[in-house]
Protein backbone atom coordinates (compact mmCIF):
# COMPACT_ATOMS: atom_id res chain seq x y z
CA UNK A 1 0.00 0.00 0.00
CA UNK A 2 2.87 2.43 0.74
CA UNK A 3 4.13 1.67 -2.72
CA UNK A 4 0.93 2.97 -4.26
CA UNK A 5 1.26 6.26 -2.36
CA UNK A 6 4.87 6.60 -3.51
CA UNK A 7 3.66 6.10 -7.09
CA UNK A 8 0.93 8.67 -6.56
CA UNK A 9 3.47 11.13 -5.19
CA UNK A 10 5.83 10.84 -8.17
CA UNK A 11 2.96 10.73 -10.65
CA UNK A 12 1.63 14.04 -9.36
CA UNK A 13 5.11 15.57 -9.48
CA UNK A 14 5.57 14.48 -13.10
CA UNK A 15 2.18 15.84 -14.17
CA UNK A 16 2.84 19.20 -12.55
CA UNK A 17 6.42 19.86 -13.65
CA UNK A 18 5.58 21.50 -16.98
CA UNK A 19 2.70 23.92 -16.85
CA UNK A 20 2.51 24.57 -20.58
CA UNK A 21 0.52 22.37 -22.93
CA UNK A 22 3.26 21.85 -25.50
CA UNK A 23 4.49 18.53 -26.89
CA UNK A 24 7.00 17.80 -24.11
CA UNK A 25 4.38 18.73 -21.55
CA UNK A 26 2.02 16.28 -23.19
CA UNK A 27 4.51 13.39 -22.96
CA UNK A 28 5.16 14.09 -19.28
CA UNK A 29 1.47 14.38 -18.55
CA UNK A 30 0.67 11.07 -20.27
CA UNK A 31 3.40 9.28 -18.30
CA UNK A 32 2.39 10.97 -15.05
CA UNK A 33 -1.29 10.14 -15.39
CA UNK A 34 -0.51 6.50 -16.27
CA UNK A 35 1.44 6.23 -13.00
CA UNK A 36 -1.29 8.01 -11.02
CA UNK A 37 -4.09 5.90 -12.46
CA UNK A 38 -2.22 2.61 -11.95
CA UNK A 39 -1.75 3.60 -8.30
CA UNK A 40 -5.45 4.39 -7.96
CA UNK A 41 -6.46 1.10 -9.66
CA UNK A 42 -4.27 -0.85 -7.22
CA UNK A 43 -5.64 1.10 -4.24
CA UNK A 44 -9.16 0.23 -5.31
CA UNK A 45 -8.27 -3.45 -5.57
CA UNK A 46 -6.79 -3.41 -2.07
CA UNK A 47 -9.46 -1.36 -0.31
CA UNK A 48 -12.67 -1.63 -2.42
CA UNK A 49 -13.45 1.97 -1.44
CA UNK A 50 -16.21 3.93 -3.25
CA UNK A 51 -14.06 7.04 -3.59
CA UNK A 52 -11.30 5.20 -5.42
CA UNK A 53 -13.91 3.75 -7.78
CA UNK A 54 -14.89 7.29 -8.87
CA UNK A 55 -11.25 8.38 -8.96
CA UNK A 56 -10.51 5.42 -11.26
CA UNK A 57 -12.99 6.77 -13.78
CA UNK A 58 -11.55 10.29 -13.81
CA UNK A 59 -7.92 9.16 -13.93
CA UNK A 60 -8.56 6.79 -16.81
CA UNK A 61 -10.32 9.64 -18.62
CA UNK A 62 -7.16 11.73 -18.16
CA UNK A 63 -4.94 8.91 -19.43
CA UNK A 64 -7.09 8.38 -22.52
CA UNK A 65 -7.35 12.06 -23.40
CA UNK A 66 -3.63 12.74 -22.91
CA UNK A 67 -2.48 9.73 -24.94
CA UNK A 68 -4.98 10.58 -27.66
CA UNK A 69 -3.68 14.13 -27.70
CA UNK A 70 -0.06 12.94 -27.84
CA UNK A 71 -0.70 10.72 -30.86
CA UNK A 72 -2.59 13.49 -32.62
CA UNK A 73 0.12 16.04 -31.83
CA UNK A 74 2.65 13.97 -33.81
CA UNK A 75 0.38 14.56 -36.81
CA UNK A 76 0.19 18.24 -36.02
CA UNK A 77 -3.37 18.33 -34.72
CA UNK A 78 -4.20 19.53 -31.22
CA UNK A 79 -7.43 17.89 -30.07
CA UNK A 80 -7.73 20.32 -27.17
CA UNK A 81 -8.39 22.96 -29.79
CA UNK A 82 -10.85 20.89 -31.83
CA UNK A 83 -12.97 18.67 -29.59
CA UNK A 84 -13.55 21.03 -26.68
CA UNK A 85 -14.04 24.74 -27.09
CA UNK A 86 -10.42 25.81 -26.82
CA UNK A 87 -10.67 28.59 -24.29
CA UNK A 88 -12.32 26.52 -21.56
CA UNK A 89 -10.21 23.35 -21.92
CA UNK A 90 -7.88 24.43 -19.15
CA UNK A 91 -10.75 25.37 -16.85
CA UNK A 92 -12.40 21.95 -17.22
CA UNK A 93 -9.12 20.06 -16.78
CA UNK A 94 -8.25 22.03 -13.65
CA UNK A 95 -11.68 21.26 -12.16
CA UNK A 96 -11.44 17.53 -12.95
CA UNK A 97 -7.92 17.49 -11.52
CA UNK A 98 -9.22 18.95 -8.26
CA UNK A 99 -12.04 16.34 -8.06
CA UNK A 100 -9.59 13.48 -8.75
CA UNK A 101 -7.24 14.36 -5.91
CA UNK A 102 -10.12 15.21 -3.60
CA UNK A 103 -11.43 11.66 -4.12
CA UNK A 104 -8.02 10.12 -3.45
CA UNK A 105 -7.62 12.25 -0.33
CA UNK A 106 -11.15 11.48 0.95
CA UNK A 107 -10.81 7.75 0.21
CA UNK A 108 -7.60 7.53 2.20
CA UNK A 109 -9.20 9.39 5.10
CA UNK A 110 -12.04 6.86 5.10
CA UNK A 111 -9.48 4.05 5.39
CA UNK A 112 -7.85 5.87 8.32
CA UNK A 113 -11.28 6.22 9.94
CA UNK A 114 -11.97 2.51 9.55
CA UNK A 115 -8.68 1.72 11.28
CA UNK A 116 -9.74 3.87 14.30
CA UNK A 117 -6.78 6.28 14.06
CA UNK A 118 -8.87 9.09 15.51
CA UNK A 119 -6.36 11.88 16.14
CA UNK A 120 -4.91 11.58 12.63
CA UNK A 121 -8.42 11.33 11.16
CA UNK A 122 -9.50 14.65 12.71
CA UNK A 123 -6.30 16.39 11.63
CA UNK A 124 -6.47 15.07 8.06
CA UNK A 125 -10.14 15.89 7.57
CA UNK A 126 -9.38 19.46 8.63
CA UNK A 127 -6.59 19.53 6.06
CA UNK A 128 -8.91 18.08 3.45
CA UNK A 129 -11.37 20.89 4.20
CA UNK A 130 -8.60 23.44 3.71
CA UNK A 131 -7.64 21.77 0.41
CA UNK A 132 -11.23 21.83 -0.83
CA UNK A 133 -11.97 25.44 0.10
CA UNK A 134 -8.66 26.78 -1.19
CA UNK A 135 -8.94 24.86 -4.49
CA UNK A 136 -12.52 25.94 -5.10
CA UNK A 137 -11.71 29.59 -4.43
CA UNK A 138 -8.72 29.41 -6.78
CA UNK A 139 -10.71 27.72 -9.55
CA UNK A 140 -13.50 30.29 -9.24
CA UNK A 141 -11.00 33.15 -9.42
CA UNK A 142 -9.41 31.44 -12.42
CA UNK A 143 -12.79 31.19 -14.17
CA UNK A 144 -13.69 34.77 -13.36
CA UNK A 145 -10.30 36.21 -14.40
CA UNK A 146 -11.53 36.45 -17.97
CA UNK A 147 -14.76 38.12 -16.86
CA UNK A 148 -13.03 40.94 -15.00
CA UNK A 149 -10.47 41.78 -17.63
CA UNK A 150 -9.51 45.05 -15.97
CA UNK A 151 -7.88 43.32 -13.00
CA UNK A 152 -6.58 40.32 -14.94
CA UNK A 153 -2.99 41.49 -14.52
CA UNK A 154 -3.37 41.10 -10.75
CA UNK A 155 -5.30 37.83 -10.88
CA UNK A 156 -3.11 35.90 -13.32
CA UNK A 157 0.09 35.77 -11.21
CA UNK A 158 -2.05 35.23 -8.11
CA UNK A 159 -3.71 32.19 -9.68
CA UNK A 160 -0.39 30.66 -10.70
CA UNK A 161 0.92 31.13 -7.18
CA UNK A 162 -2.23 29.65 -5.63
CA UNK A 163 -2.16 26.56 -7.86
CA UNK A 164 1.48 25.97 -6.96
CA UNK A 165 0.69 26.26 -3.24
CA UNK A 166 -2.22 23.81 -3.58
CA UNK A 167 -0.03 21.28 -5.41
CA UNK A 168 2.72 21.46 -2.81
CA UNK A 169 0.16 21.17 0.00
CA UNK A 170 -1.33 18.08 -1.70
CA UNK A 171 2.06 16.39 -2.17
CA UNK A 172 3.01 17.09 1.43
CA UNK A 173 -0.26 15.57 2.66
CA UNK A 174 0.07 12.46 0.52
CA UNK A 175 3.37 11.78 2.29
CA UNK A 176 1.61 12.33 5.64
CA UNK A 177 -1.20 9.93 4.69
CA UNK A 178 1.35 7.30 3.67
CA UNK A 179 3.09 7.57 7.02
CA UNK A 180 -0.24 7.33 8.87
CA UNK A 181 -1.13 4.08 7.10
CA UNK A 182 2.12 2.24 7.83
Amino acid at each position, binding site marked *: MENQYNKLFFGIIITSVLINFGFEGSILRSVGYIIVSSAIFNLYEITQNECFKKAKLISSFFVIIHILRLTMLTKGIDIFKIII*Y*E*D*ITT*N*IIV*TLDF*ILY*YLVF*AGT*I*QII*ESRNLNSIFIMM*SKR*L*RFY*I*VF*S*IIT*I*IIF*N*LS*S*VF*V*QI*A*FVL*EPLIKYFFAVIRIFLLFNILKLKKALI
Partner: protein
Amino acid sequence: MDFNKKIVKIGLLLIVISLILNITTKMNSRLQKIVFLKMYVEKDLSQIYEQDKYKLYGFRAKYIVQEQNTMIANKIKKISFKEEPRVKIDFRINNVYGKKTNRYKIKDLDFSMDFSEIHDDFKELELNNMIITLNNGEEFNVNLGSIIVYNDKNEDLRQGGFFTDYKEYEMGVVANKDLIVTKIGLEKSCEFDKSLETWIDRNDLNNLKIELKEDDTFCINHRLNFNKGILSKYFIYQRMLVIYYKTKDNERKLIRTYQISHMPLEFSDGDVYKYLKLRGEI
Protein backbone atom coordinates in the same frame (compact mmCIF):
# COMPACT_ATOMS: atom_id res chain seq x y z
CA MET B 1 -16.71 13.67 6.38
CA ASP B 2 -20.25 14.59 5.37
CA PHE B 3 -19.47 18.24 5.95
CA ASN B 4 -16.57 18.04 3.50
CA LYS B 5 -18.86 16.44 0.92
CA LYS B 6 -21.35 19.28 1.31
CA ILE B 7 -18.62 21.87 0.76
CA VAL B 8 -17.52 20.06 -2.39
CA LYS B 9 -21.07 19.99 -3.74
CA ILE B 10 -21.65 23.71 -3.11
CA GLY B 11 -18.19 24.49 -4.49
CA LEU B 12 -18.80 22.53 -7.68
CA LEU B 13 -22.07 24.39 -8.17
CA LEU B 14 -20.23 27.72 -7.82
CA ILE B 15 -17.53 26.50 -10.21
CA VAL B 16 -20.15 25.62 -12.82
CA ILE B 17 -21.78 29.06 -12.45
CA SER B 18 -18.43 30.82 -12.85
CA LEU B 19 -17.62 28.60 -15.84
CA ILE B 20 -20.87 29.63 -17.53
CA LEU B 21 -20.01 33.29 -16.88
CA ASN B 22 -16.56 32.64 -18.31
CA ILE B 23 -17.95 31.07 -21.50
CA THR B 24 -20.49 33.83 -22.07
CA THR B 25 -17.92 36.61 -21.71
CA LYS B 26 -15.50 34.77 -23.99
CA MET B 27 -18.23 34.37 -26.59
CA ASN B 28 -18.96 38.10 -26.26
CA SER B 29 -15.37 39.18 -26.71
CA ARG B 30 -14.73 36.90 -29.65
CA LEU B 31 -13.14 38.72 -32.55
CA GLN B 32 -14.18 37.40 -35.94
CA LYS B 33 -12.11 39.56 -38.24
CA ILE B 34 -8.76 41.30 -38.46
CA VAL B 35 -8.77 44.78 -36.95
CA PHE B 36 -6.11 47.28 -38.00
CA LEU B 37 -5.07 50.10 -35.71
CA LYS B 38 -5.82 53.49 -37.20
CA MET B 39 -2.78 55.31 -38.52
CA TYR B 40 -1.97 58.83 -39.59
CA VAL B 41 1.34 58.74 -41.42
CA GLU B 42 3.04 61.42 -43.50
CA LYS B 43 6.24 60.79 -45.44
CA ASP B 44 8.34 62.78 -47.79
CA LEU B 45 9.48 61.06 -50.97
CA SER B 46 12.09 63.69 -51.81
CA GLN B 47 14.18 63.02 -48.70
CA ILE B 48 15.29 59.50 -49.59
CA TYR B 49 18.60 58.21 -50.83
CA GLU B 50 19.60 58.37 -54.44
CA GLN B 51 19.99 54.63 -55.13
CA ASP B 52 16.50 53.76 -53.84
CA LYS B 53 14.77 56.43 -55.80
CA TYR B 54 10.99 56.45 -55.49
CA LYS B 55 10.91 53.72 -52.90
CA LEU B 56 9.75 54.42 -49.36
CA TYR B 57 10.58 52.00 -46.57
CA GLY B 58 9.53 51.73 -42.97
CA PHE B 59 5.77 51.71 -42.97
CA ARG B 60 4.33 49.71 -40.15
CA ALA B 61 0.68 48.84 -39.63
CA LYS B 62 -0.47 46.89 -36.62
CA TYR B 63 -3.44 44.57 -36.48
CA ILE B 64 -5.29 42.64 -33.81
CA VAL B 65 -6.42 39.05 -34.34
CA GLN B 66 -7.70 36.33 -32.09
CA GLU B 67 -5.63 33.16 -31.78
CA GLN B 68 -7.91 31.16 -34.06
CA ASN B 69 -7.64 33.70 -36.84
CA THR B 70 -3.85 33.82 -37.06
CA MET B 71 -3.89 31.13 -39.75
CA ILE B 72 -5.96 33.41 -41.97
CA ALA B 73 -3.76 36.37 -41.23
CA ASN B 74 -0.64 34.48 -42.28
CA LYS B 75 -2.08 33.78 -45.69
CA ILE B 76 -2.16 37.38 -46.89
CA LYS B 77 -1.02 37.22 -50.50
CA LYS B 78 -1.25 40.72 -51.87
CA ILE B 79 -1.80 44.24 -50.65
CA SER B 80 -2.78 47.25 -52.69
CA PHE B 81 -4.37 50.63 -52.18
CA LYS B 82 -7.77 51.49 -53.54
CA GLU B 83 -6.85 55.11 -54.24
CA GLU B 84 -3.71 54.35 -56.26
CA PRO B 85 -3.37 50.75 -57.49
CA ARG B 86 -0.17 51.56 -59.35
CA VAL B 87 1.78 51.86 -56.10
CA LYS B 88 3.61 48.56 -55.64
CA ILE B 89 3.82 47.22 -52.11
CA ASP B 90 6.25 44.72 -50.62
CA PHE B 91 5.20 43.47 -47.23
CA ARG B 92 6.30 41.22 -44.45
CA ILE B 93 4.34 40.02 -41.43
CA ASN B 94 6.36 40.15 -38.28
CA ASN B 95 5.48 37.15 -36.19
CA VAL B 96 8.38 37.13 -33.79
CA TYR B 97 7.93 40.54 -32.29
CA GLY B 98 4.15 40.47 -32.30
CA LYS B 99 2.80 41.06 -28.83
CA LYS B 100 0.46 38.54 -27.34
CA THR B 101 -2.06 39.18 -24.64
CA ASN B 102 -4.16 36.50 -23.03
CA ARG B 103 -6.95 36.78 -25.54
CA TYR B 104 -5.66 38.61 -28.59
CA LYS B 105 -2.55 38.74 -30.71
CA ILE B 106 -1.07 41.95 -32.04
CA LYS B 107 0.97 41.59 -35.22
CA ASP B 108 3.06 43.96 -37.26
CA LEU B 109 2.64 44.38 -40.98
CA ASP B 110 5.78 46.03 -42.33
CA PHE B 111 5.60 47.32 -45.85
CA SER B 112 7.43 49.45 -48.35
CA MET B 113 5.96 51.39 -51.26
CA ASP B 114 7.37 51.72 -54.76
CA PHE B 115 6.34 54.93 -56.55
CA SER B 116 8.47 54.46 -59.67
CA GLU B 117 5.42 54.28 -61.96
CA ILE B 118 3.79 57.47 -60.80
CA HIS B 119 6.54 59.66 -59.34
CA ASP B 120 6.10 62.44 -61.89
CA ASP B 121 2.32 62.63 -61.59
CA PHE B 122 1.85 63.76 -58.03
CA LYS B 123 2.92 66.31 -55.48
CA GLU B 124 0.85 64.89 -52.69
CA LEU B 125 -0.90 61.53 -52.46
CA GLU B 126 -3.33 60.43 -49.78
CA LEU B 127 -4.05 56.72 -49.30
CA ASN B 128 -6.87 55.52 -47.05
CA ASN B 129 -8.23 52.14 -48.00
CA MET B 130 -6.10 49.04 -48.16
CA ILE B 131 -7.29 46.06 -50.16
CA ILE B 132 -6.03 42.76 -48.76
CA THR B 133 -6.10 39.66 -50.92
CA LEU B 134 -5.84 36.28 -49.22
CA ASN B 135 -4.39 33.08 -50.66
CA ASN B 136 -7.83 31.71 -51.46
CA GLY B 137 -8.74 34.75 -53.54
CA GLU B 138 -10.89 36.40 -50.90
CA GLU B 139 -10.63 40.18 -50.85
CA PHE B 140 -11.48 42.65 -48.15
CA ASN B 141 -11.21 46.34 -47.63
CA VAL B 142 -9.59 47.93 -44.59
CA ASN B 143 -9.89 51.60 -43.68
CA LEU B 144 -6.40 52.30 -42.39
CA GLY B 145 -6.77 55.97 -41.57
CA SER B 146 -4.53 58.00 -43.80
CA ILE B 147 -1.09 57.72 -45.33
CA ILE B 148 0.10 60.89 -47.03
CA VAL B 149 3.15 60.93 -49.28
CA TYR B 150 4.66 64.21 -50.46
CA ASN B 151 6.84 64.61 -53.47
CA ASP B 152 8.14 68.10 -52.91
CA LYS B 153 11.76 68.97 -53.64
CA ASN B 154 12.58 71.85 -51.37
CA GLU B 155 16.02 72.14 -49.82
CA ASP B 156 16.04 75.55 -48.18
CA LEU B 157 16.31 74.03 -44.71
CA ARG B 158 17.96 70.85 -43.49
CA GLN B 159 17.93 68.82 -40.31
CA GLY B 160 20.48 69.51 -37.63
CA GLY B 161 21.14 67.83 -34.30
CA PHE B 162 18.72 65.84 -32.22
CA PHE B 163 18.26 65.44 -28.50
CA THR B 164 15.75 63.47 -26.43
CA ASP B 165 15.12 62.29 -22.91
CA TYR B 166 12.24 60.09 -24.18
CA LYS B 167 9.62 62.53 -22.93
CA GLU B 168 10.65 65.68 -24.70
CA TYR B 169 12.38 65.99 -28.04
CA GLU B 170 14.60 68.76 -29.28
CA MET B 171 15.39 69.00 -32.97
CA GLY B 172 17.82 71.32 -34.68
CA VAL B 173 17.05 72.90 -38.05
CA VAL B 174 19.74 74.52 -40.23
CA ALA B 175 19.08 77.11 -42.93
CA ASN B 176 20.63 76.64 -46.34
CA LYS B 177 20.04 80.26 -47.37
CA ASP B 178 18.83 83.53 -45.87
CA LEU B 179 15.19 83.41 -44.80
CA ILE B 180 12.63 84.45 -42.16
CA VAL B 181 10.63 81.77 -40.33
CA THR B 182 7.04 82.93 -39.78
CA LYS B 183 5.14 79.94 -38.45
CA ILE B 184 5.66 76.37 -37.27
CA GLY B 185 2.89 73.82 -37.16
CA LEU B 186 1.14 70.96 -38.90
CA GLU B 187 -0.25 71.19 -42.38
CA LYS B 188 -3.56 69.40 -41.86
CA SER B 189 -5.26 68.81 -38.55
CA CYS B 190 -6.32 65.41 -37.33
CA GLU B 191 -8.21 64.33 -34.22
CA PHE B 192 -5.09 63.31 -32.31
CA ASP B 193 -3.20 66.60 -32.58
CA LYS B 194 -4.39 67.60 -29.10
CA SER B 195 -1.77 65.24 -27.69
CA LEU B 196 1.09 67.07 -29.36
CA GLU B 197 2.79 70.11 -27.86
CA THR B 198 5.36 72.08 -29.82
CA TRP B 199 7.35 75.11 -28.74
CA ILE B 200 10.46 77.18 -29.31
CA ASP B 201 11.70 78.64 -26.04
CA ARG B 202 8.08 78.47 -24.86
CA ASN B 203 6.85 81.03 -27.38
CA ASP B 204 3.71 81.16 -29.48
CA LEU B 205 4.38 79.51 -32.81
CA ASN B 206 1.81 81.29 -34.95
CA ASN B 207 3.42 84.73 -35.26
CA LEU B 208 7.11 84.06 -35.31
CA LYS B 209 9.84 86.16 -36.76
CA ILE B 210 13.14 84.34 -36.70
CA GLU B 211 15.65 85.73 -39.14
CA LEU B 212 18.19 83.18 -40.29
CA LYS B 213 21.33 83.56 -42.34
CA GLU B 214 23.03 80.75 -44.18
CA ASP B 215 24.08 77.91 -41.81
CA ASP B 216 22.24 79.43 -38.84
CA THR B 217 20.60 76.91 -36.51
CA PHE B 218 17.54 76.99 -34.31
CA CYS B 219 15.81 74.34 -32.18
CA ILE B 220 12.24 73.15 -32.03
CA ASN B 221 10.95 71.17 -29.04
CA HIS B 222 8.00 68.84 -28.90
CA ARG B 223 6.35 66.49 -26.49
CA LEU B 224 3.76 63.75 -27.04
CA ASN B 225 1.12 62.65 -24.59
CA PHE B 226 -0.91 59.83 -26.10
CA ASN B 227 -2.04 58.03 -22.98
CA LYS B 228 -5.19 60.02 -22.24
CA GLY B 229 -7.78 57.86 -23.96
CA ILE B 230 -7.70 54.30 -25.17
CA LEU B 231 -8.61 55.24 -28.74
CA SER B 232 -5.64 57.59 -28.90
CA LYS B 233 -3.34 55.18 -27.06
CA TYR B 234 -3.56 52.59 -29.83
CA PHE B 235 -2.89 54.86 -32.73
CA ILE B 236 0.04 55.06 -35.13
CA TYR B 237 1.10 58.66 -35.59
CA GLN B 238 3.92 59.85 -37.83
CA ARG B 239 3.50 63.46 -38.89
CA MET B 240 5.79 65.93 -40.55
CA LEU B 241 6.38 69.20 -38.74
CA VAL B 242 6.02 72.05 -41.20
CA ILE B 243 7.99 75.29 -41.16
CA TYR B 244 6.49 78.28 -43.01
CA TYR B 245 8.98 80.91 -44.09
CA LYS B 246 9.63 83.94 -46.29
CA THR B 247 12.62 84.19 -48.61
CA LYS B 248 14.54 87.34 -49.54
CA ASP B 249 12.21 87.98 -52.46
CA ASN B 250 9.23 87.93 -50.05
CA GLU B 251 8.12 84.60 -51.46
CA ARG B 252 6.07 82.53 -48.97
CA LYS B 253 7.02 78.87 -48.85
CA LEU B 254 6.79 75.86 -46.58
CA ILE B 255 9.08 72.93 -45.86
CA ARG B 256 8.45 69.66 -44.07
CA THR B 257 11.30 69.16 -41.67
CA TYR B 258 11.20 66.15 -39.45
CA GLN B 259 8.82 63.47 -38.33
CA ILE B 260 7.00 63.31 -35.01
CA SER B 261 6.16 59.70 -34.35
CA HIS B 262 4.27 57.55 -31.92
CA MET B 263 3.99 53.77 -32.13
CA PRO B 264 2.00 51.82 -29.51
CA LEU B 265 4.14 49.05 -28.01
CA GLU B 266 2.46 48.01 -24.77
CA PHE B 267 -0.77 46.05 -25.10
CA SER B 268 -2.88 44.68 -22.28
CA ASP B 269 -5.95 42.46 -22.44
CA GLY B 270 -8.32 44.93 -20.84
CA ASP B 271 -7.23 47.86 -22.95
CA VAL B 272 -7.40 45.93 -26.23
CA TYR B 273 -10.89 44.72 -25.26
CA LYS B 274 -12.01 48.29 -24.47
CA TYR B 275 -10.45 49.52 -27.70
CA LEU B 276 -12.31 46.94 -29.80
CA LYS B 277 -15.53 47.73 -27.95
CA LEU B 278 -15.11 51.47 -28.63
CA ARG B 279 -14.36 50.78 -32.28
CA GLY B 280 -17.51 48.65 -32.41
CA GLU B 281 -15.73 45.53 -33.66
CA ILE B 282 -17.03 43.18 -30.96
